[in-house]
Every structure is written in structure tokens, then in C-alpha cells.
């Protein structure tokens, strides 16, 4: 009798085990299916634009002629954003990990994380309403003094709504990403390496150069890649700040466009082939960011045992 009740209850428990582990497995697989579905549905909806006669695509010269200026615009904006954000982010990460008083450090980290909490549309509104008018005199100065450089060719935009302003807003948005990852890695530097450097008479900066930065290099690289992924896909900052136009070399004139902003500005009113074109543009963006993120994750996984950024 006792054996019987034991086995029956065991049977019920076993069924519960099966159901539960099956449910968790299904949820895990659902994620893979969703990611696959993202790619699949984008491709299905994008095909009409890829096979349409060139004259029907916006611009009238086919999909490739339509997409490459905005791909270039996306890359320009993202790269400038990273050039601005990376040194500052590494400086902030070093400040929090090695310079700030221990008791303040976590609080300061939280303050930097607040930057990440602010919604992107608010950054866009701030960039358009506050930053652009404030910064346009600087563009005028650049145009008159450095105008011989193609990237600062005048006449400067009077409103300040240029690709450089958009990049500055983007750099503010990627700053917390690079900072928080780098900070984690700098904190993982072996204490013995640091103390050995200091014991040999190194100053704090020499210690950082000799012990912290070499140790953190792969982590910094992957943090920059993740920041790049974010900057490539960011929509609102560009859509609200940039007064878009054709591809131009000058960073201080209005012009240029990014993929994400192009989609956001045109998708709500689009119909027919235009929808397909925009979804195809989204597919291109998806492929670019997927590549960037996979390289970043691969670097992190390769150095997993050293870094805390996984």
C-alpha cells in the first residue's frame, strides 16, 4: 500500500517535471524562433522592393541607389558618435573605478546609468530644442575658420540641425553603455597587478597604463562595438535633430540621413512598394547591427574568464 501511494505520487511528480522542463525548453526555443522570424518576415516583406523595376523605387534608380547614401549616413553618424563618446566613456569608467572615493563610486555609477534611463525621444527633443540652437554659432565659426576642410565646408546650417549635432546626441546615448561595461572590466583587474605596479614606484596613471588598460583592452573593444550597435540603430535622436537631405561631405550643413530615421519618418504614411522598400532598409540595418553585435559578443565570450561583462 505504502509503495503504491509512493509510486503514484511519484508518477504525478514526474509528469509535473516533464511539463515544467518542457515549458522552459519551449520558452527558450521560442526566443530562437522569434529571432529567426525577425529575419524571415523582414526578408519576405522586403522581397518586392528588391525585385521591383528600378524606376518604381523612390529616387527611380533601384534599391541599391536608394540605400547606399543612407547606409553611409548611418555609418558617419555612428562613427562620429563613437569618436566623441569613447574617450569620455573610458575616462568616466576609470574615474568611477579608480579615482572616485570608494563610498561614492556606486552612487556615481548610478548617476551615469540615469543617462541610459532617459528615453531616446527626450534626447531627440533636447537635441532639437536646446543643443542645436546653442551649437550653431560654433558651426559658423568652424565654417569660416576651417572651411577649407571638406567636412567643415560652409555655409553652416543656421538652425544647427546637422549630422554633427545628431552625432553629439548619439554620443550622449552610447556613453552609458560603454561606461558601464568598461567600468565592470576595470574593476576586475587583478589587485596584485595594480599593487605590484604601485610598489615599483609607478604613479597612478602609470599603474593604469601598465596594469588596468592592457587587462581591459578586449572588454573596451567589445564595449565600443556594443555602443556602435546602439548608435547604428538609434532612431529618435536623428529623426528629431537632423534636417535630412542628400548625402553631403560637410558635417555642418543640413543633409545626410540614417536608415533608422528614414524608416521612422516615412513608414507611418507609407503604402505599397514604399513599405517594402523601408522594410528592406530595416533588413539592411538589421544585418549590419547583427554583424557588429555578434563580433562584440564573440570577443566577450573569447575573454569570458577574464571579464565580468558577460
Amino acid at each position, binding site marked *: 500500500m505504502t509503495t503504491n501511494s509512493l509510486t503514484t505520487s511519484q508518477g504525478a511528480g514526474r509528469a*509535473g*517535471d516533464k511539463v515544467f522542463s518542457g515549458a522552459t525548453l519551449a520558452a527558450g526555443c521560442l526566443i530562437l524562433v522569434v529571432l529567426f522570424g525577425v529575419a524571415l518576415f523582414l526578408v519576405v516583406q522586403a522581397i518586392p522592393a528588391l525585385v521591383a523595376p528600378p524606376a518604381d523605387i523612390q529616387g527611380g534608380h533601384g534599391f541599391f541607389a536608394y540605400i547606399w547614401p543612407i547606409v553611409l549616413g548611418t555609418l558617419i553618424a555612428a562613427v562620429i558618435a563613437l569618436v566623441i563618446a569613447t574617450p569620455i566613456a573610458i575616462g568616466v569608467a576609470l574615474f568611477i573605478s579608480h579615482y572616485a572615493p570608494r563610498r561614492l563610486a556606486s552612487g556615481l555609477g548610478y*548617476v551615469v546609468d540615469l543617462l541610459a534611463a532617459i528615453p531616446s525621444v527626450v534626447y531627440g527633443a533636447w537635441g532639437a530644442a536646446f543643443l542645436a540652437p546653442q551649437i550653431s554659432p560654433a558651426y559658423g565659426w568652424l565654417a569660416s575658420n576651417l572651411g577649407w576642410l571638406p567636412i567643415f565646408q560652409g555655409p553652416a546650417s543656421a538652425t544647427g540641425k546637422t549630422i554633427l549635432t545628431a552625432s553629439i546626441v548619439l554620443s550622449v546615448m552610447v556613453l552609458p553603455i560603454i561606461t558601464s561595461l568598461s567600468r565592470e572590466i576595470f574593476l576586475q583587474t587583478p589587485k596584485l597587478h595594480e599593487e605590484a605596479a604601485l610598489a615599483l614606484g609607478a604613479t*597612478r596613471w602609470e599603474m593604469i597604463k601598465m596594469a588596468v588598460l592592457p587587462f581591459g583592452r578586449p572588454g573596451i573593444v567589445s564595449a565600443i562595438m556594443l555602443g556602435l550597435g546602439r548608435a547604428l540603430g538609434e532612431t529618435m535622436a536623428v529623426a528629431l535633430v537632423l534636417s535630412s537631405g542628400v548625402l553631403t561631405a560637410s558635417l555642418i550643413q543640413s543633409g545626410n540621413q540614417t536608415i533608422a530615421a528614414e524608416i521612422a519618418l516615412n513608414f507611418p504614411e507609407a503604402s505599397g512598394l514604399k*513599405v517594402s522598400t523601408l522594410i528592406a532598409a530595416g533588413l539592411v540595418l*538589421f544585418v549590419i547591427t547583427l554583424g557588429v553585435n555578434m563580433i562584440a559578443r564573440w570577443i566577450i565570450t573569447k575573454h569570458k574568464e577574464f571579464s565580468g561583462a558577460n
Partner: protein
Amino acid sequence: MTVTAPVARKRSALTKGQLPAFAPYIVLAVALVLGAAILALIGFNAFGWGLVSAILFTIGLVGWSAAVEGGRKASDKLATCLIVGSFLVALLPLVSVIWTVLVNGIPGIITPGFLTTSMNGVTGAFDNKSVEEGTKVLGGVYHALLGTVQITLLATVISVPVGLLTAIYLVEYGNDRVLARAITFFVDVMTGIPSIVAGLFAAAFFFVVVGPGTKTGAVAAVALSVLMIPVVVRSSEEMLKIVPNELREAAYALGVRKWRAILKVVIPTAISGIASGVTLAIARVIGETAPILVTAGFATSINNNVFGGWMASLPTFIYTQILNPTSPSNPDPSSQRAWGAALVLIILVMLLNLGARLIARIFAPKAGR
């Protein structure tokens, strides 16, 4: 005399070639005064004063250090100045954004009825009238607030079970199998999907399944789930991992089945971390604009049905009010409403962030250590 003199000499030998402890304060004071003087010549403003003073401070301190202490100490000082400076530079946009939103948003938010009326029937004519006659700005964010809450709630209802179950699979059943490693990798990759691509995916999915041009709150919720699931998985996974193995083993030793051990022992132990992770995930997606823009359309009236009809949300409300003002000739009332909505949105996000910290503190396991 003969005893004290060598001591004094020794001390001076040790401290020789070092700047006195008060050196930075002197340089700072000089830099501030000089900065003010220079700015007074070309027109004073606070930002320029700070910038010029910071540059003067760096040059002064590093130069003095180079003269007294030598090159190595000077480059250390320079690095310190640059690193502290970069932190201060990073604070500038934060302060500036919050200040701009507060200054521009408060007039909007204190307008009577701003939080309790929608934009239904508010046309450019009303805005022109309010500018010309100075009457109050009509219209509000009620419909957008309602839409944001509904869309985010539905996204949470979709994401939390999927994300939590996946995290349980990874921690409890995965055993570092190929599938588990693949899921971990692709969850990380999903974290990096641009939000607008997630929106396009949901739109493309519903275009195929339901019909072209389908735009409802539910589509937006699916788009937000794509962004939210990886965040939930990552944070829940971290929390489940730190549940001590002794607890699981004690449960198994008492003859408890694995699934009951997970439900009754592991999850209750980790619930504070999981809840705060979910709250942070909500805070992340509640401000997303681009996916809602391409999936839910714009609405000016209240829509209580997530599954039918266009729906407004706070971020898209801000976006449309700025980009397409209700009255093109008088954009001021629209921008006032947009900043008011931005303030409401920031308050929501900050409350969620604060809530996440409180949850983590309040529901932390009492017998943890």
C-alpha cells in the same frame, strides 16, 4: 641643535620636489579668477567660464608640477585632470536634459486638465486662439498615458513568462548544452536589435498574418516584447545563478521534485532580484518610440482596445507634437504639450527605476546569510 638639524634636513629632502597639499586649491582659485577676467572681455557666460577655468586649471597645475616634480608626476596630474574632466563633461548633458525638460515641461503639466483630457477634437484653431488671447492650452496626454500603460502592460504579460522560463531553462536544465549556449548567445544578440527593426518585425509579422496595414496596440506590444524578453532573461538568469546550491540540494534531499523545488525554493529566494529586473525592463521599453511609431500609428482620442484601432503612447505623442504641430502657424502650444508629456514620461521612468531599487531592498530574502 645637532640632533634636530639632520631630522629637519631629512624631512625637507623627502618632501622636496613635491607640490604642497594646498597647491590644487591655489591653482583653482587663480584659474577661476583668470577665467572670469577673460570671459568678461569677450562676454560672460557660465558654460564658457567653467570651460576656460578648467583649461587654465589643467595648464597651471600640470605646468607647476612639471617644473617642481618632473615629467612623470606631471603626466599623472594631467591624466587625473582629464579623467575627472571627462566625468564632469558626462554630467553636463544629464543636467542639461533634466533642466530643459523641467523648465519646459512644468508649464505644460500644471495646465488644468493636461493629465485628464485627450487630444480628441483639439484642432489648430484652438491653439491659435490660445496664443492670440493668452487662454490656457487645450488638450492633454490622457489618451497617450492610457495607451502607454496598456501597451507596456501587454508587453510585460508576454515577456515575463517567456523570459523567466527561458532563464530557468538556462540555469536549471541547460547544463551548458549546445542549445543552452545558442540561446545565451542569441539572447545577447537580441539585446542589440535596433528598436526600429523590432517594430518593423512586428509590423511585417502582422501584415503577413492578419493583413496589410494592421496597426494596433497589440502589434506594438509584440514589438516591445522582442526588446524586453532578452533583458528579462539576462537579469533573471543572473538572479537564479546566485541562489545557493545548498538550498536546491536540501530540497532534493527531502524528496521534493525538481519542478517543485524550483517553484517553491529557487524562485522565492530570487524573487526580489527578478522583480527588480522586470521593473527595469519595463522602464527600458516604456520610453521606446520607434517601434510604437511603426506599429500602433497615431491616435488623438482615447482607445481602450489594444486589439483594434490605432493607439497613442507618450513617446509618439511627444514625437508627433514636435514634428507635426497641431497648428503649424503657432507651434508653441504643441511644444508645450510635448515637453509636458516628456516630463510625465521621465517621471514614470524614474519612478520605475526607483521602484526597482525599493523592490530589491524590500523583498530581499531575510534569511539569506
